[in-house]
């Protein structure tokens, strides 16, 4: 009995995680895929009807806005968060005395719910109360900062808050990367009189390529699942100007009673993730085999 137990321990202890993953992830993906091929409305139906939901999806102007927003938001968010994270990391890597405190200051937004901090952001972005009012009080009467209520600009407020939340995380990643670069090489370069900025651009940053990739993957993943952020800041508005695929999906599933649409939009989101992540996983697998 104990021998049997000993031999099968790995299977026994893995069973719960395995089962959970099998049902909740793989099973649910298959289920979503199935529902996305039906005419499900308020209740799921299971007769397959082909790609009608996808046709409806791509004919919908609201989905069009959501996808456009995802690209604008995603690209700006990823690029700016990476640049800012790298700058902060290099800054903190200069052996400054307040490093611990600064690291916490930049990192803590990550730990907070956007639902809570969203109210503060909304106030800061509110033209009548926040930044605009403040700068006007300083004497710049012409200053306008009405992004939050401007349909063309509202998506950029989402970018602003998303960067606020995540660049500390990118900083932490890069900082760990900077610290793992071989100090001897840097010293040798300095002895040779190579200026600091050259040491960074020619030696340190190229050696951190894998970290750039990880940061990119995580940020892309965050961008696609952004939901709280939009709900807390703009609620998808004005109109549906700041809808993202996630908020579109939620609106379809729970306020429009259109489960088929929700499922098809979920499948598209999943495909976007896979096109980004699969090459990464592939390279990861290959490096593991080496």
């Amino acid at each position, binding site marked *: 009995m104990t021998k049997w137990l000993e031999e099968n*321990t*790995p299977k026994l*202890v893995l069973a*719960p*995680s*395995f089962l959970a*993953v099998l049902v909740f992830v793989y099973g*649910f*993906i298959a*289920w*979503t895929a199935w*529902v996305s091929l039906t005419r499900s409305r308020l209740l799921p139906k299971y007769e397959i009807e082909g790609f009608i939901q996808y046709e409806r999806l791509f004919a919908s102007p609201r989905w069009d806005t959501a996808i456009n927003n995802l690209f604008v938001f995603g690209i700006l968010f990823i690029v700016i968060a990476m640049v*800012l994270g790298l700058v902060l990391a290099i*800054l903190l890597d200069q052996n400054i005395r307040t490093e*611990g405190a600064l*690291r*916490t*200051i*930049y*990192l*803590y*937004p990550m*730990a*907070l*719910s*956007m*639902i*809570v*901090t969203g*109210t*503060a952001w909304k*106030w*800061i972005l509110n033209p009548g*109360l*926040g930044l605009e*009012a403040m700068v006007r009080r300083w004497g710049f009467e012409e200053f306008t900062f009405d992004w939050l209520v401007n349909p063309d600009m509202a998506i950029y407020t989402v970018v602003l808050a998303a960067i*606020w939340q995540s660049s500390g995380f990118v900083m*932490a*990643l890069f*900082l760990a990367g900077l610290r793992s670069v071989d100090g001897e090489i840097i010293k040798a370069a300095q002895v040779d009189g190579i200026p600091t900025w050259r040491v960074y651009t020619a030696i340190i940053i190229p050696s951190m390529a*894998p*970290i750039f990739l*990880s940061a990119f993957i995580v940020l892309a*993943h965050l961008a*696609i699942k952004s*939901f*709280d952020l939009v*709900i*807390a800041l703009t*609620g998808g508005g004005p109109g549906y100007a700041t809808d993202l695929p*996630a908020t579109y*999906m*939620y609106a379809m*599933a*729970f306020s429009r009673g259109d489960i088929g649409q*929700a499922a098809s939009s*979920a499948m598209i*989101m999943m495909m976007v*993730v896979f096109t980004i*992540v699969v090459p990464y996983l592939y390279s990861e697998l290959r490096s593991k085999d080496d």
Partner: protein
Amino acid sequence: MSQFSQTNSGGIDYRRRQKVARLLQHLVILLGAAVLTIYALAPVTWLVSSSFQTEAEIVSVPPHWIPEEPTLQNFEAIFSATEEEEITYETRSGQDPASGGYIPSTAKNLIPSMWNSLIVASLVVVLNLLVGVPAAYALAKIRFWGRDASVYFILITRVIPDIALVVPFFLVIRKLGMLDSLGSLVLTYLAVTVPFSVFILVQYFEGLPDELDKAARVDGCSRFQALLRVFLPLSLPSLVAVVLFTFLTSWNEFLLALMFTQTEASQTLPIVLAAFTSDFTISFSFINAAGVLAIVPPVIVAVVFERYIVSGLTAGAVKG
């Protein structure tokens, strides 16, 4: 003497220019750092500051970053709101909602929702450790048939956005009759967090030498004892990272809670807060006081365990 030779050779000009350039560089860096620090701190500073202000002060232009007449009335309202006594603006201050100071009748849900959040988060943390630690140990340290496949089977789920799976989540929870229960939240949060916990722990266990395992086994430890006595004490940082992550995820989770909860029996803090913010009659300062209560646990966690958050975040990302 040296000064003399430098003025003659023109070297001092060069040197001074270099000095000025360096000074400018420092100035730019300092300025940039200051701007970024303000960007990082402003929203929460405002949240905290305004929670101690009256409604009249909070809408004043220019805003008061430091309350002129600090007041605890918002917090008092939250803690004095009970089931028996329905707190409305009439019973509390007799003010007109338009002039602010309006405390919603749902204020009494706030404290229960905090308990709900705490219960759910604690259960998810404990269950994560119970399920995740043995699984990660088995994946990292025991050779068995199908091990590599299992690793990828579980780890690939880390990249699948949970938001894409909510439709089946909802259908199942409804079918099971678990809507509006804490159980629905615990179950689904587990499904979302366990793969990530396993991921962090596998990374860490793999970094510990296999010889430890063998030595413990030679000394007569069972697998279970080897895990408990040898590996767990050594992997404390990763355990802390798992606890932090699962706690923060459960404490802040919004989407699933929004779908599953309906009444105060199961509503968590973010849900009650979101309900406040969509009600335009409620005073900003009251919402912000509630928000301050909601961010106290995460902020404490972030400040005290910052080191572990970093090590958890960078697990697997930084392998050199």
